[in-house]
């Protein structure tokens, strides 16, 4: 009854395959690791700068800055007041510095995801072939357990901010790309035809019609992207990203219930602030569609 056994590779063969791939990747890392590392230096510098700015500036200034940004985006007093209270409480419980690190990290990750994600989304929307190619990659990025792609990232960059950044961006960029693509594809065909009829070039159509009309969907993508970055910074703490995630990790390792809950709540508060502010902003962008002829 030999045939009932699954014809798997023999232990020896499997080992050879693993060894070969691991070996060649290690060689690749040794040869090019530094170069790739250098390439990401500006990003790290920017992240460090932002972090230092948030931590070393006097806290009232930072608090006022955040309140100002939230108000400018949402134009709502309630959300602004909520922001101030949440941040003040975070400070009271001694999580200010970690929170600032996390905010800096999420900000840089989100910016990177936007800068990379929107153009990819636009390419996807313009060509069905690109969409067919990119979609499975996005599926992979969203379902592959993050710990798995942390391995090669850590092998190349070691432990620290940049690998964390890359891991977070990989995790958070798919909704950005997907929703940009979807938003552009959902733009009314009649309006596009009108733009064509008036002789718009491809880029004029993109800037005047497609992007503005896709903006609400793109804003939803940015919102999702921020939320996913926030949840990923906790995982990224395992590869040396400092901030609230590290506090959580610490609490798990040492069974510090209160510390864990407090850090967790701090992450939730930031998430809510970001979410409400970006959603309110997205809604304001659509004000033209709210006023309806009666």
């Amino acid at each position, binding site marked *: 009854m030999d045939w009932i056994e699954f014809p798997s590779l023999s232990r020896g063969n499997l080992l050879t395959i693993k060894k070969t791939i691991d070996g060649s990747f290690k060689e690749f890392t040794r040869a090019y690791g530094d170069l790739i590392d250098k390439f990401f230096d500006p990003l790290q510098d920017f992240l460090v700068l932002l972090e230092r700015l948030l931590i070393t500036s006097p806290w009232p200034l930072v608090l006022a800055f955040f309140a100002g940004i939230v108000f400018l985006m949402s134009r709502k007093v309630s959300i602004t007041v909520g922001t101030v209270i949440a941040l003040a409480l975070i400070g009271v419980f001694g999580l200010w510095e970690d929170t600032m690190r996390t905010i800096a990290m999420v900000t840089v990750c989100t910016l990177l995801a936007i800068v990379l994600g929107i153009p990819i989304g636009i390419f996807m929307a313009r060509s069905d072939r690109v969409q067919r190619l990119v979609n499975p990659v996005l599926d992979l990025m969203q379902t592959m357990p993050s710990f798995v792609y942390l391995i090669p990232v850590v092998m190349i960059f070691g432990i620290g901010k940049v690998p964390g950044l890359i891991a977070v961006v990989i995790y958070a960029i798919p909704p950005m790309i997907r929703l940009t693509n979807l938003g552009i594809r959902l733009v009314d065909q009649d*309006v596009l035809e*009108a*733009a064509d009829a008036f*002789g*718009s070039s491809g880029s004029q159509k993109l800037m005047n019609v497609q992007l503005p009309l896709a903006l609400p969907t793109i804003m939803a993508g940015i919102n999702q992207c921020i939320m996913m970055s926030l949840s990923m910074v906790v995982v990224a703490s395992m590869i040396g990203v400092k901030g609230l995630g590290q506090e959580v990790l610490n609490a798990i390792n040492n069974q510090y219930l209160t510390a864990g809950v407090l850090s967790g709540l701090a992450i939730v508060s930031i998430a809510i602030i970001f979410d409400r502010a970006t959603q309110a902003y997205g809604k304001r962008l659509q004000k*033209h*569609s709210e*006023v*309806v*002829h009666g």
Partner: protein
Amino acid sequence: MGEATGIEIKNLYKIFGPNGKEMVQKVKDGMSKAELNEKFNHVLGLNDINISMPGGKIEVVMGLSGSGKSTLIRHINRLIDPTDGEVLYGSEDVCKMTQKELREFRRHKTAMVFQKFALLPHRTVMKNTVYGLEIQGVPMKEAENRAARWIARVGLEGFEDHYPNQLSGGMQQRVGLARALTNDADILLMDEAFSALDPLIRMDMQTVLLDLQEELHKTIVFITHDLDEALRLGDKIAILRDGAVIQQGTGQEIVLRPADQYIADFVKEVNRGRVILVDTVMDKTRTVKEGGLTISSGIMLEEAAKTFAETGLGEASVVNGDGRPVGVLNVQDTISAMVTPATL
């Protein structure tokens, strides 16, 4: 502005499907739309269209849904590529233009008004109206000055900063019209432009268009499924059915001499008094001397009937533009021509 250039459509075919080009010969050899669909799974959109659209006039293309009229108008600015044939504007063949030439042609020579308005919802009335000039690269200040004139001309003064969905359908289509007119193009393409509007607003917009045409003399191609609209607007009418032109001519010609039973059924319910000219009904064999009632040549029977009713007279002298008598019209003939199918 000089006389607008006309459009000449010659042997135009459009066959939808992957091998449209190869199907043209089959259609030329007489294959029907149904047969083509059944045997080769290709849809015959337009079948050997030949229309000469005079410059500075309103050409109406009429047909029911599925007749190919919207496909036809989209060939004039090549939003749809033809399978075979020519669309001539002056000596240029629109079908042979490169992408760049085509873009220039669309920017400067044509403007289009759409059935569903197709305004940019995120832009105000003013920003919608300048759209054509904006993509031509006209400086914003100049563009807004030119647009403001047309916004006022279509009766939307004061609404410049409104968004499209703050306006009623009729007002939205006025924006569509202003946007097209601001382009200052020779050709105005109107794809069922008034079909989505309710009857009163539609009449109103027709009047706006006729008033504008009186001063602008553009080459207007107007698509409609409404015979009354076609007869009211069209200097010339082409009737489309299953992708082929089955009759073209003036409104009067179509009402008085329908080419087949299909058109005859169509024109049965038409108000003849508004279509038939007094010249058609009058007695050309005699004229009456000076004095008595006169009506001018080229007016419709309904107007003549009104004159008869107001004066109570039974006979009138029909005079041409110079005031010379060209015939005699009596009230009997007028009424009978209005109520019964007359012939030329």
